[in-house]
């Protein structure tokens, strides 16, 4: 990945200890969200260590399968996933998160749906149908009362 990309600016993640660059580190997550406003891609190791930020992905191949309508960042991620073993995770301008693997689009995630799942909105849910619109209203959770 690093060999097939180049920095667009001086790397802001360079020189930090590995322990502070792991994806599970909450301090890092805030930093990554800020750096995501800048141009370029992050390179992450298979162990979840952020190796570099703001990189221009320089891989090109014809063996990618990108649906029409997706732009250059998707094509760059698809190309990189085709020529390396990397998985490409792309945040689109329309806020959809897409995953590329071996040059193919393998998943699309709508943030709201992901948050619904991870906020544990399961359980008792009231379902209403208004025309084509389905409205799910989670039940209020009982807050434990401290003794």
């Amino acid at each position, binding site marked *: 990945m690093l060999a097939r990309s180049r920095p667009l600016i001086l790397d802001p993640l360079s020189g930090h200890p590995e322990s502070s660059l792991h994806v599970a580190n909450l301090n890092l997550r805030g930093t990554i969200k800020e750096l995501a406003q800048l141009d370029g891609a992050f390179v992450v190791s*298979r162990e979840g260590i952020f190796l570099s930020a703001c990189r221009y992905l320089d891989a090109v191949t014809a063996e990618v399968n990108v649906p029409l309508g997706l732009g250059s960042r998707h094509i760059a991620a698809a190309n990189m996933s085709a020529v390396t073993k990397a998985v490409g*995770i792309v945040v689109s301008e329309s806020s959809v998160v897409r*995953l590329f693997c071996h040059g193919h689009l393998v*998943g699309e995630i709508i943030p709201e749906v992901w948050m619904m799942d991870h906020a544990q909105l399961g359980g008792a849910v009231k379902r209403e149908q208004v025309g084509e619109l389905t409205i799910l209203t989670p039940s209020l959770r009982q807050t434990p009362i401290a003794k």
Partner: protein
Amino acid sequence: MGKVRSFVIERLNLLGGPFIQIRRGDYPKRWDLMMFESILCQVTEYDPEVLESLIGLAVEIAR
């Protein structure tokens, strides 16, 4: 408690297969979990915990 609209996804791509159109109002039970499990199955060479954490971070950035 606010209401959660369920029609935000209109298409999914499961296991690299053809796009499956989900019409508004169609909401298969637990389909969101199915989608995520499918994605993680596609890239088994990577630690699912790391990948899921990265996807979660991407979702936070998207929001």
